[in-house]
């Protein structure tokens, strides 16, 4: 019984350490992702607010997200970027899944990053 308990305690300790290490790693990635460059001029085109929707050909919800944003924010520019066609751009902005949506100001500075259709819907519904 004591040996078994020791095995379980060791396993739980591994889980806790793994969780801490993983969270630190994710926090590092997050900090890295915040140091993103400005979006290129051809995407922003001087608009006060530009939503850039990173999609993939197999993304089921990307079209819905794009039309949702266009309807909810008629004064904003909404641009779709196929991450599989613009790999350098997707890498530069640390795109890991689709849809990932970036909101940029007129200078191309990223103001907001939303990952997933639900996050976009919540953002549009609740506002900033």
């Amino acid at each position, binding site marked *: *019984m004591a040996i*078994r*308990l020791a*095995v*379980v305690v060791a*396993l*739980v300790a*591994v*889980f*806790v350490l*793994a*969780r801490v290490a*993983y969270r630190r790693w994710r926090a590092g990635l997050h900090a890295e992702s915040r140091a993103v460059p400005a979006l290129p001029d051809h995407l922003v085109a001087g608009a006060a607010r530009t939503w850039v929707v990173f999609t993939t050909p*197999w993304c*089921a*919800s990307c079209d819905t997200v794009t039309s949702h944003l266009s309807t909810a924010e008629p004064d904003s520019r909404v641009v779709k970027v196929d991450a599989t066609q613009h790999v350098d751009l997707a890498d530069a902005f640390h795109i890991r*899944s689709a849809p990932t949506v970036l909101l940029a100001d007129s200078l191309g500075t990223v103001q907001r990053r939303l*990952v*997933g*259709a*639900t*996050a976009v819907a*919540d953002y549009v519904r609740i506002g900033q």
Partner: protein
Amino acid sequence: MSERPQPIDPRGPRFNQAVLCVALLAAFVLDLPVVVPVFAVVLFLGAAFGPRYGPFLRLYRDVIRPRLRPPAELEDPRPPRFASTVGTVFLTVATLAFLAGADTLGWVLALVPAALAGLAAATGICVGCEMWLFVARRRHVELVA
């Protein structure tokens, strides 16, 4: 023609993994090998028939999820189902080992999915899911989330 799978709340499989891990570790400490086939069946139901039929997935969906905020992201259901299939295989072989009197082998086989489930529940790193995704990416399988 196969139906396109519906994306799921990823917290459901994580809850299932947490329950599996706690139950198997408790069974190991208390030397209750009967828990192993029970969880083989639990995993099998979720893996074979979908989240609606997994008891703890159903518990999460019907009781816990309504009390939580909506998930930030959704997940393709196939990777966690594959992970459950792998877990089912381990627990089934562990059960056979217990029946054959090889208790040490049985616990080793049962602790593998327990450890992997604990890792997934604690960190979100699901080894079985990654195995499925590794193959899916090479076969250009379309993900639904």
